[in-house]
């Protein structure tokens, strides 16, 4: 049987428990994507219930429907243009007065709307009694009480929504916000003007359009211009006349006056439906904040939480990462035994399997980090963190919440950039994403350890600390620079709600965590895998290099001559000779590997680029190492190991010795460290930037900016240092 389809949009204030209700309704059958053209998350879910096929859309949480933020524009446009069958406005019953502000706006749009008074239990415990029947009567809207985190009232809510969708409910003309006389006069005169002049070409309620024109709503004005054809100028002119009159009459903008009047109307409703019992209960949330945002304890506690998150993500995450690594190695080794030696085998093992490994290795970090972030968000601590950090972050022109992604950058940039999703303003998000890569990630540390260890000895620690500090300083400089140029204005106002603390729901935490990880695997995994294969091809080809020396026969020759010697040698010398033989063979294999790397496409590109790196004190081997670092920064060390022909031992002392004897100077090492700190982020991070900014433009910009900055700073250090030393 073909079931009837209905679309239900969930709207409401942030922290109204909207997401919990959405999770209750849809469970795990959710589709997470982005709203077209923007990076605001869009969640949808399909549910079969009561013989209907329900499509439930979670609109972004908003306080209002004025088109100031991207979230508000999305929510309003969805209701206006996509016309869902029903809108459910989820209202925090313990915060009725402010929540009704959004509710009255839905009422004004004249869509089929239903109020869910959520967290009814919290509201009751705080001593509020809401007369739902009266509220329903006063606004002529069905009202349902729900307790989202206890999964109460969901069925009733859906039932009522379906009932409302199927009713031939005529939008009543009364019982909505009534403004003062002068405004109402302007509205009705503009409304009848619209009725006569548009002939229904504007698909919104005429009263609503009139109100928006009086409010000087830029988006509605533009739609009128597009849709009303030649009459549109006339309409806008008429609206301007009324607007000017009202400005003159109230000595203020009509939208300001109307905001006040809406709240006046709401105050009237509150008086009738809300009774507050006098018994004052202890406000647990306020008591928690006495501690968590305390003048003296607030920061230490915050730092502890962040430290704990960092530890969980990167230390606890290291175990599953090791298992994944072992698993990949195991598969790789097993296949190595089974498959015949050919190019396909190399491709499969070093290209594909290594590539899959490099995607999967991030998964533990991302799962744990987003679990922690979900706890911060769902409990309400996230806004406290922003409250504490805002003063500091505001110096860079950022919001307090930017702190978390930037800090996570010290661990790994991929989850860090994904964490920027918690920022509401798109400009803040873009700026945070652009400067996060300057937080030196953990994969860069081995590079510093090798270089600083080789050239700065006892002062290595100080030098590495200086590198980290340089990253922070340059991120501040970059932040201020972009804030005053590319991403100017819209310094997001810090009108931030500090919602009451709530116990998080494990189901919601898990859904949150899984959504992020899915995005990572699906949207970025492919790019990272493809990139790894390309880099493998570049370093593995051309396959048949004409070596300067026939290494294989040389190795065979040495082996043969040693073996002959061992045969005849005295028993006590045998061991020594065998050791010597192995050493000589290893030396040759090392040279062969270095020559192979030098002659690969990657090596050739590195040599071509060598003149670019020469002014910053990096030779062609360093250039190749930096290029391969695009796959993952830790590869820089292993490539250097191959190219500088260091002994294949696990401790980095061998590489240090090789570097010291390669002609690199301490100044060159410093320049190289700074370059590694700043130059283009690794492949996975670049994929994350593309994904989270939603644009190739920002991705390319980030790569170009960071690499140019890296070169310039390294140039200043190397050349400046050379001059000073002379």
């Amino acid at each position, binding site marked *: 049987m073909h079931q009837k389809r209905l679309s239900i949009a969930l709207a409401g204030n942030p922290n109204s428990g909207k997401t919990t209700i959405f999770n209750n309704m849809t469970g795990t059958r959710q589709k997470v994507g982005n709203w077209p053209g923007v990076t605001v998350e869009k969640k949808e879910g399909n549910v079969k219930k009561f013989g209907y096929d329900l499509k439930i859309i979670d609109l972004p949480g908003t*306080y*209002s429907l*004025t088109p*100031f933020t991207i979230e508000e524009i999305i929510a309003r446009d969805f209701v206006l243009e996509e016309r869902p069958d029903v809108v459910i406005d989820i209202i925090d019953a*313990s*915060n009725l*007065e*402010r929540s009704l*502000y959004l509710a009255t706006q839905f009422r004004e749009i004249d869509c089929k709307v239903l109020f869910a008074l959520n967290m009814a239990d919290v509201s009751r415990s705080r001593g509020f009694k809401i007369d739902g029947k009266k509220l329903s009567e006063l606004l002529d809207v069905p009202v349902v009480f729900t307790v989202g985190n206890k999964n109460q009232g969901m069925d009733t809510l859906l039932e009522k929504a379906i009932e409302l969708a199927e009713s031939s409910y005529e939008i009543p003309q009364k019982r909505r916000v009534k403004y003062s006389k002068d405004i109402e006069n302007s509205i009705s005169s503009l409304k009848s003007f619209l009725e006569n002049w548009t002939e229904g070409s504007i698909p919104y309620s005429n009263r609503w359009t009139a109100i928006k024109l009086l409010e000087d709503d830029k988006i509605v004005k533009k739609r009128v211009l597009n849709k009303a054809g030649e009459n549109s100028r006339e309409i806008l002119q008429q609206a301007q006349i009324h607007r000017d009159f009202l400005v003159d009459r109230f000595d203020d903008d009509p*939208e*300001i006056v109307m*905001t*006040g009047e809406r*709240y006046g109307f709401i105050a009237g409703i509150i008086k009738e439906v809300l009774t507050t019992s006098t018994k004052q209960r202890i406000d647990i949330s*306020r008591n928690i*904040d006495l501690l968590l*945002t*305390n*003048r*003296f304890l*607030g*920061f230490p506690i915050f730092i502890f939480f962040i430290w704990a998150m960092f530890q969980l993500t990167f230390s606890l995450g290291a175990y599953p990462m090791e298992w994944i690594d072992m698993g990949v190695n195991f598969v790789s080794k097993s296949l190595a035994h089974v498959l015949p030696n050919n190019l396909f085998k190399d491709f499969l093992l070093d290209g594909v399997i290594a590539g899959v490994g490099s995607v999967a290795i991030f998964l533990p970090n991302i799962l744990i980090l987003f679990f922690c972030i979900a706890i911060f968000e769902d409990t309400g601590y996230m*806004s406290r963190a922003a*409250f*504490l950090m*805002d*003063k*500091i972050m*505001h110096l860079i022109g950022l919001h307090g919440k930017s702190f978390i992604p930037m800090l996570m950058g010290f661990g790994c940039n991929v989850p860090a950039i994904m964490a920027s999703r918690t920022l509401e303003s798109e400009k803040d998000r873009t700026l945070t994403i652009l400067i996060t890569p300057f937080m030196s990630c953990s994969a860069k540390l081995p590079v510093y350890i090798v270089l600083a260890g080789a050239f700065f000895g006892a002062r290595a620690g100080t030098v590495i600390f200086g590198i980290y500090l340089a990253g922070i300083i340059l991120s501040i400089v970059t932040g201020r620079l972009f804030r005053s140029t590319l991403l100017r204005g819209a310094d997001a*106002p*810090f*009108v*931030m*709600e*500090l*919602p*009451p603390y709530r116990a998080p729901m494990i189901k919601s935490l898990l859904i949150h965590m899984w959504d992020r990880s899915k995005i990572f695997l699906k949207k970025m995994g492919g790019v990272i895998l493809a990139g790894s294969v390309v880099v493998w091809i570049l370093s593995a080809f051309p396959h048949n290099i004409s070596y300067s020396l026939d290494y294989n026969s040389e190795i065979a020759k040495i082996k043969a001559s040693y073996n002959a010697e061992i045969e005849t040698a005295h028993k006590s010398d045998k061991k020594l000779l065998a050791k010597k033989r192995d050493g000589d063979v290893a030396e040759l294999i090392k040279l062969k590997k270095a020559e192979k790397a030098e002659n690969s496409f990657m090596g050739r590109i590195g040599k071509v680029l060598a003149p670019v790196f020469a002014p910053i004190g990096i030779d062609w081997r360093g250039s190749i190492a930096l290029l391969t670092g695009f796959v993952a920064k830790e590869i820089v060390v292993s490539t250097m190991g191959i190219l500088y022909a260091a002994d294949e031992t696990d401790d980095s002392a061998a590489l240090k010795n090789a570097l010291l004897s390669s002609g690199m100077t301490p100044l060159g090492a410093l320049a190289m460290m700074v370059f590694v700190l700043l130059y283009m982020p690794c492949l996975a991070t670049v994929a994350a930037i593309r994904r989270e900014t939603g644009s190739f433009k920002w991705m390319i910009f980030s790569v170009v900016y960071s690499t140019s900055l890296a070169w310039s700073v390294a140039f200043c250090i190397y050349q400046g240092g050379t001059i000073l030393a002379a």
Partner: protein
Amino acid sequence: MLLSNIKENQTARIVHIGGNGALRRRILEMGILKGSEIYVEKYAPLKDPIELIVKGYHVSLRVKEAAQITVDNVK
């Protein structure tokens, strides 16, 4: 008197909200309106932003933003 001059744990009544454009309207939309009672819960450890209680809920404003709001009847 400006809201940014009010001390912790004091209540005041809003007389006027200055500033312009989106920020001013956003402040109003959050229920911070002329005539509303506003309670200064606390200042952040670094003295900025401020935590306020208005219409029964907690909201924070930067000091710079609070300096646009004139109040009287400070208690």
